[in-house]
């Protein structure tokens, strides 16, 4: 039961008690009013008696005065009957004083008869003697009624005083005791509930059970309050967590955006630097050639023309590299079946000139249980870049130069291994391997310096990894690419 309904019940009981008290007071005062009315009845009746005596002693018979007096007398029984309600009638019937009401009715009839007689007299239907006789008898009856009225009224009042008042007092006391007990119990109950909730919530040991305990032990508004508070707190905690996550995400995004911006700025700088270099060299070489032709030094002019051709192919490589690097972002992401042996044969064909020039051998081995499924273009570019790097940076001081490609697999990944016995990457520069525009062998630096960046970018896009082992004995790259279903 809700606290508010309990309180409403107490308020209703109190109102009932107070109402009962007021009613009993009104009843007692009603008894006083009855006595007062009887006195008035007697007073006007005495007035009537005097008027009758005066007429008998020779005074003039004034119909109007007599009618007035009797009308006054008639008012009291009327008021008496008005005052009495159903409850009064019930009490009076029970204690045998209901006769009072009959007395009033009789009094009323007598008064009405007298008023009628006065009218008849006026019209000359009744004689003076007859009128006087009747008036005297009326006067007498009124007097008798007054006497008869007094005792039952007194009895009724004293009954109310002696019976109803103690009853009312007892009921009021009972109601008060009930209210006090009820309120005490209720407040104790509320305090108890609040205390047990406080204990429940401060107890840190049984966090999981708090919900169940509250459900079982707490009821009414307190339960609602706890539930609402809990929901509110949960919402706030959730909100705080969401905000924290969002802040973290924004931070992360900002960091990666800043990094991307820095990378882009560096790329632009390096790219323009590397693009500009062969151009300005060519410009100067062309001037030298003109000078040499004018001076007749045609051999030197020829050499310079060769230099220009080299510069231009360098520029071409660079532009192709930059394009490949840019396209690495937008390569077709479909995983398709790859004919690996055909792909490796193509790479060998494309590299044949380079292989012959460096007197380098190319070996491949494939250990796959089923056809490779991956992003074809990325795989080509990864293998081709690693292979051509291996050939380009071969070590002419070693015999039997080779580049070996091995492709194998395990349950989750494809493993591509490219091994050479070339120059190797200087140990203190190995961390720069995948940076753009890096070349480690000045005498052989005819690459764009972008190859390894392209490789790394493709591997990153495919969520793979690349490991490198490099020394003066050669270099070994191991690329691990997760299979499509394992991603």
């Amino acid at each position, binding site marked *: 039961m809700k606290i508010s309904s309990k309180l409403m019940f107490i308020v209703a009981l109190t109102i009932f008690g107070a109402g009962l008290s007021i009613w009993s007071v009104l009843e007692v005062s009603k008894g006083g009013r009855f006595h007062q009315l009887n006195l008035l009845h007697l007073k006007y009746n005495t007035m009537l008696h005097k008027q009758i005596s005066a007429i008998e002693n020779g005074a003039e018979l004034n119909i109007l005065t007599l009618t007035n007096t009797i009308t006054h007398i008639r008012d009291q029984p009327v008021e008496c009957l008005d005052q009495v309600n159903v409850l009064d009638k019930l009490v009076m019937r029970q204690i045998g004083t209901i006769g009072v009401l009959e007395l009033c009715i009789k009094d009323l009839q007598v008064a009405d008869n007298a008023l009628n007689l006065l009218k008849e007299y006026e019209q000359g239907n009744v004689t003076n003697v007859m009128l006087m006789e009747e008036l005297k008898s009326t006067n007498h009856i009124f007097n008798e009624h007054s006497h008869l009225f007094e005792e039952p009224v007194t009895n009724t009042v004293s009954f109310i005083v002696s019976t109803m008042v103690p009853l009312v007092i007892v009921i009021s006391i009972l109601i008060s005791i009930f209210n006090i007990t009820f309120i005490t119990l209720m407040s104790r109950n509320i305090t108890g509930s609040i205390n047990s909730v406080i204990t429940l919530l401060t107890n840190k040991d049984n966090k999981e059970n708090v919900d169940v305990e509250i459900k079982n032990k707490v009821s009414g508004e307190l339960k609602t309050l706890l539930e609402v508070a809990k929901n509110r707190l949960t919402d706030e905690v959730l909100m705080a967590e969401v905000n924290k996550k969002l802040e973290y995400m924004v931070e992360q995004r900002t960091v990666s955006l800043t990094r991307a911006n820095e990378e882009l700025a560096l790329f632009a700088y390096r790219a323009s630097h590397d693009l500009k270099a062969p151009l300005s060299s060519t410009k100067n070489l062309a001037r*030298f050639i003109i000078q040499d032709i004018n001076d007749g030094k045609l051999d030197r002019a020829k050499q310079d023309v060769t230099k220009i051709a080299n510069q231009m192919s360098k520029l071409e490589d660079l532009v192709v590299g930059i394009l490949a690097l840019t396209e690495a972002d937008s390569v077709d992401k479909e995983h398709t079946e790859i004919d690996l042996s055909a792909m490796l044969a193509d790479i060998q064909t494309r590299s044949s000139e380079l292989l012959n020039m460096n007197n380098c051998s190319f070996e491949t081995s494939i250990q796959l249980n089923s056809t490779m499924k991956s992003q074809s273009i990325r795989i080509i570019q990864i293998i081709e870049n690693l292979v051509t790097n291996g050939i380009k940076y071969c070590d002419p001081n070693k015999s039997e130069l080779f580049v070996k490609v091995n492709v194998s697999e395990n349950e989750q990944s494809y493993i591509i291994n490219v091994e050479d016995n070339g120059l190797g990457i200087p140990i203190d520069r190995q961390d720069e391997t995948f940076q753009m525009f890096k*070349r480690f062998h000045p005498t052989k630096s005819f690459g764009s310096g972008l190859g390894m960046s392209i490789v790394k970018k493709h591997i990153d896009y495919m969520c793979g990894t690349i490991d490198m082992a490099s020394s003066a004995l050669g270099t070994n790259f191991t690329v691990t690419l997760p299979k499509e279903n394992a991603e």
Partner: protein
Amino acid sequence: MNKISALIVDDNEVDRYLLTRHLNDIDVVDIFEADDGSSALEFLSDYDKNREMHNGKFPPIVIFLDINMPILNGFEFLDEFDVLRKRLELKACVIMMYSSSERQEDKDKAAKFDFVQDFLIKGEVTPELLRDKVSAL
């Protein structure tokens, strides 16, 4: 001006060639070349041997130094050279940066060394400019 000898440190063969020809045009003919900061440093460190071998031409009066080089880049070379020049008789030797970088931060970084005389930008070098710079030495 005939007395002036130079060292060109640049990994780019063509750039070395271009600068050599420009220097020849202004009659600087005693020119050493190095393809990286590391080999240039080795060349300078072999002080006594080279002094004997290149009579009167070693140590070079001016070093033209590229920045972007594979093993020991221009700035790393400057750090090493700063130590070396105090140990060996290289105090008369000045450096002119010879780079295609036009970045102010590179220029500022180079200018921190008091022996760096100038910052030449590849492609903007002409015999006239070189003549002015070299005759000021």
